[in-house]
């Protein structure tokens, strides 16, 4: 069961909802619907599933409907048609149709939210802002203080607890917003352009902190952004929206390498692929490398050969008759021991190595990189040619 799932939802702002829905079905555009009914199409035919523990980024220009569908998850926006399923206490609840009591329960316990303009209450101290959700729930005294202190420590604001929010910088205010959202211990976190109002350095820092927190607390995060870099950096899944419809949903690599239409292509044109692409996307797959018996040839002349065992794992290296040394690099960042790197003749790295890390390794050692999957099976080769093609995004040619 996905944590959040949109099933074919339409959202209409205005009085003539029925008329607008009929026009949506007839395939009219947002402008036509506005001029014919006076109602604004917020979203049409949106279906999307967000799995537990995933960061899903809704992307698009302003007015594309990304905030609109985000707000449908906790019913700040009413859905005209379709279902919004949220996993609440072990079962899927349709937020769009559930009764007031269930909705309130979901808002208090399952879904919390971070706002673009922070949405902090200026007459309350940082501590009382963070405890706001718990207070609404009716939690009192010591327990509330304990949780609030814990969340304040989590976002590094312990020393600011008694300040008023207008004494804090923008970045700090949004940390208060984050702490407030974490305080209710909801599984699902809605973030509506939370970092857009901040300057770039602070934004970058908060993005890192969010990723860091996510590694520890594993929430399901639905994140709205108009900044593609942010989306690619944070999102496990990215849904690109235009005119109230989702035009493409997939991983960052998918979107970068296989844009669904001209709009998405335009969007990703100026993207920096370094942080997005991984070994899987750029490598020359093992199956396409020339083979001779149990050896895989890494160059055209067949002078560099890798011997693989029965499971497909690289075991030894043969350089024109000389035995070479295989050195392994770890993690998606490709960390490697310096002395080992100096003596090695080829590097073995995990297949989800980032392109940026591959370039670093290449610059550091000037050795070809063999990519292996989790079981150690040879997956492919990443050398200069593969890296250049990845940078130029000419992966099919």
């Amino acid at each position, binding site marked *: 069961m996905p944590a959040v799932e949109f099933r074919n939802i339409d959202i209409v702002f205005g009085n003539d909802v029925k008329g607008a829905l009929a026009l949506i079905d007839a395939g009219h555009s947002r402008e036509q619907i506005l001029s014919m009914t006076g109602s604004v199409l917020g979203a049409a035919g949106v279906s999307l599933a967000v799995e537990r523990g995933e960061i899903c980024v809704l992307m698009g220009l302003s007015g594309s409907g990304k905030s609109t569908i985000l707000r449908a998850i*906790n019913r*700040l926006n009413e859905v005209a048609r379709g279902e919004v399923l949220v996993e609440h206490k072990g079962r899927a609840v349709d937020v769009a149709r559930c009764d007031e009591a269930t909705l*309130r*329960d*979901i*808002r*208090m316990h399952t*879904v*919390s*939210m971070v*706002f*673009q*303009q*922070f*949405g*902090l*209450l200026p*007459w*309350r101290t940082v501590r009382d802002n963070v405890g*706001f*959700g718990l*207070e*609404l*729930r009716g939690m009192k005294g010591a327990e509330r203080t304990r949780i609030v202190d814990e969340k304040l420590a989590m976002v590094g604001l312990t020393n600011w607890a*008694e300040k*008023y929010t*207008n*004494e804090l910088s923008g970045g700090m205010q949004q940390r208060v917003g984050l702490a*407030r959202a974490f305080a*209710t211990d909801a599984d699902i976190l*809605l973030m509506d352009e939370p970092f857009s109002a901040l300057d770039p350095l602070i934004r970058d820092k908060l993005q890192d902190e969010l990723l860091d927190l996510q590694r520890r607390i594993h929430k399901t995060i639905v994140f709205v952004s108009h900044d593609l870099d942010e989306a690619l950096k944070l999102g496990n899944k990215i849904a690109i929206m235009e005119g109230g419809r989702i035009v493409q949903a997939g991983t960052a690599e998918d979107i970068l390498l296989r844009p669904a239409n001209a709009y998405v292509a335009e969007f990703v044109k100026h993207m920096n692929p370094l942080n997005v692409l991984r070994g899987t996307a750029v490598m020359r797959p093992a199956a396409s490398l020339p083979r001779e018996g149990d050896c895989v040839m890494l160059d055209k002349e067949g002078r560099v050969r890798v011997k693989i065992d029965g499971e497909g794992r690289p075991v030894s290296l043969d350089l024109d008759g000389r035995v070479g040394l295989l050195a392994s690099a770890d993690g998606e960042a490709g960390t490697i021991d310096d002395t080992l790197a100096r003596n090695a003749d080829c590097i073995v790295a995990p297949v989800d190595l980032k392109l940026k890390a591959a370039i670093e390794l290449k610059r550091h050692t000037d050795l070809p990189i063999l990519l292996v999957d989790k079981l150690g099976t040879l997956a492919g080769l990443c050398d200069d040619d593969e890296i250049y093609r990845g940078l130029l995004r000419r992966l099919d040619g």
Partner: protein
Amino acid sequence: MYDWLTEHKIPLGNWLKSFVDLLTEHGQDVFDLISLVLGTLISGFTSALLFVPPLLLIALFGLAAWLVHRSIGLTVFIVGALLLVTNLGYWVATMETLSLVICATLVCVVIGVPIGIAAAHRPWLYTALRPVLDLMQTIPTFVYLIPTLVLFGLGAVPGLISTVIFSIPAPIRLTHLGISSVPANLYEAGKAFGATKTQLLFKVELPYALPTIMAGITQCIMLSLSMVVIAALVGADGLGKPVVRALNSVNISMGFEAGLAIVVLAIVLDRVCKRPERRKKS
């Protein structure tokens, strides 16, 4: 044509008179009850204020001003001004006026703030209310002084009612303004964390609107004070009485002194009620 128009007068005034007659005939018990409650309230406040020795009360006022505003200048001014009023011999009248103003403001707040909140939540109600509020503030006071006099009899109560009619638009308007200017993102923050309507009102809307509502209450106090002389015309005690008497007997000195006492009270109330800046560093 002109003659015809003047000869066939529409009996608007008579209609209203019949309406008031109807009210006195059938609702006299209700009005008597209101009169009794408000009368007791005012005289209760007055006796309480007069029960405390004047100098002690002045000291208490000074202390309160100091505690709220932490300003030596303001405290000295308030104590000095009240001592001057006592010296002129208007202490009792000042306290009577103060009690009338407090009661009028209380009634205005108790009725006006909920109406303002209701109007902020229902745009149609405010649309309906606005001409009524305009009317209440523009119609000459004497016009409704007469029916209130008939309905509630002579004394402090008709004065209080007239004062309330005149001053209540201020808290209604400013409460409406304050509540309807709550930023959308604060509402959404409240709703997103599961606030009920009541919680939204008490934890988001009212705290946000509080400075504006307080401004409305301060205005209400000032408007009430400006009705003191009118209230005296229908028999309410206080600083209005010597002013009316001075007017009737062309007594310049008495008029000036009583007028000065009203001004002093106005300034003291205004300064005390002005909200201090929100404590930033505490």
